[in-house]
């Protein structure tokens, strides 16, 4: 059963595409291709295999950058939340890291490390790590010491204390960091590809831009948005449901 809110959502979305289709047909301009034309282009690209190749490359970069940022950010975030000394030492750097424009780190990484994937991923990670740190640090500060004392009192082994008592308290924060992290990384990876890689969705968009091929740009946008939605539905939401089941 669809609720009324859901109906409204679908109604407005289809209304938007319908309006777009009508305006595009009336204008008949190459600057505004109709949704139907975008879909045709999307299908063509998909069949040729080219789109899958570029999407695959981009996804791979997103995944690696995401994993690196989460691991490093979580580690530093926990230390900063747990130890005042570490926090005092790193807080200035953190504020700096939060405020450096993405473009600056991307350009610097390419200059320092060359136009290679390692530079691209490093640039993305440098942009993302500070925001992970801030969220995880908040979580580490909110950890309930009394529950950790239970683990100590029962002399539970350290690794079990870490994985079953400590980290579960951080899950909501890790989840928030992951969500906002993916959203940011998708966007930065495209810029990184545009500036210094010869494949990936960002590179393709750059090429289409040079030819003013708006249909191609929108076809890739559509493909990309679909992937993001699939990742949200297939990975993020089930994980979220699983770890917050006890709250219901």
């Amino acid at each position, binding site marked *: 059963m669809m609720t009324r809110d859901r109906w409204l959502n679908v109604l407005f979305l289809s209304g938007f595409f319908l309006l777009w289709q009508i305006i595009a047909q009336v204008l008949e301009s190459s600057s505004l291709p109709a949704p139907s034309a975008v879909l045709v282009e999307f299908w063509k690209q998909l069949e040729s295999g080219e789109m899958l190749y570029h999407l695959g490359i981009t996804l791979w970069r997103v995944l690696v950058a995401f994993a690196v940022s989460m691991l490093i950010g979580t580690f530093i975030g926990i230390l900063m939340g747990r130890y005042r000394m570490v926090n005092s030492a790193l807080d200035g750097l953190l504020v700096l890291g939060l405020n450096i424009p993405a473009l600056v780190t991307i350009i610097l990484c390419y200059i320092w490390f060359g136009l290679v994937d390692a530079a691209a991923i490093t640039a993305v990670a440098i942009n993302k790590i500070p925001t992970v740190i801030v969220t995880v640090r908040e979580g580490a500060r909110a950890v309930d010491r009394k529950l950790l004392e239970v683990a100590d*009192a029962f002399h539970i082994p350290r690794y079990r204390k870490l994985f079953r008592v400590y980290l579960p308290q951080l899950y909501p924060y890790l989840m928030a960091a992951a969500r906002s992290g993916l959203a940011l990384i998708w966007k930065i990876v495209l810029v990184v590809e545009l500036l210094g890689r010869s494949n990936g969705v960002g590179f393709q968009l750059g090429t289409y831009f040079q030819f003013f091929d708006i249909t191609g740009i929108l076809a890739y946008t559509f493909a990309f948005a679909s992937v993001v939605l699939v990742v949200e539905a297939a990975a993020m939401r089930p994980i979220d449901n699983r770890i917050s089941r006890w709250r219901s």
Partner: protein
Amino acid sequence: MTELAIDIVRKHYASSDVLALKDLSFSVTSGKFVALVGPSGAGKTTILNSILGLDNDYQGDVLVNAQSLKEVDVHPAKIGCMFQEPRLMPWMTVEQNLELVLEGKSSDKQLIRKVLEQVELTERASSYPGHLSGGMQRRVALARAFAVNPNLLLMDEPFLSLDEPSADRLRQLLYTLWQELRPTVIFVTHNLREALALADEIIFLSASPGTVIRHFPIDIKRPQQLDHSAISELQERLLRENPEILSGLAEENDGGNINPTQEQYLQ
């Protein structure tokens, strides 16, 4: 079987000059149920932490089965614990909470089923603590303490701020479980009647710095309801002999409904 010998000469609170314990010395023979009774600031929780081996920063020694806790790597006793709050992991079901403190053996499931049966929570095994009443949460905490088959049970005011019927039920359960397994028990409370109703012996502590004022062996039939006349008689005798115990305790009145007030003692 677990024997304790506590002999703490001096213990300062962490990172301060305030003396928490001074010349505190008592021993507990195996299988005894001992209540520690004293006002706030008597260092009761500090004593429990040193028995747990979590705090070895004191002058003196704590011996468990004649082994100094300052010298052992692995605690000599199998410890079960209960705190002022239930302290269950809210993201784990009742069953998982018990599993957490066990060693991951194949026999765990049976053990958990048995102990949940004993606290009458079998049908709540897969509930989350947030869905249980306060009394039920304490019963899970009690089950957790006994699930590890403890030979040493440490309880830090475990029935604080519970309504009297729930507290009474928990005391009965505790007594039954204790009789079956006979761990050595250190039971911290500042409810004198509760101590009289449960323990073999009460050790009275002074206010800061904590030291032993009096050992008081109890030889009435247990467990009794807190308003039982035998308990009232014992209490009257005790307070006649040691009125200073009352003065220490009567200051304790943090509004919890089982914390005794002066009127309750004198009624």
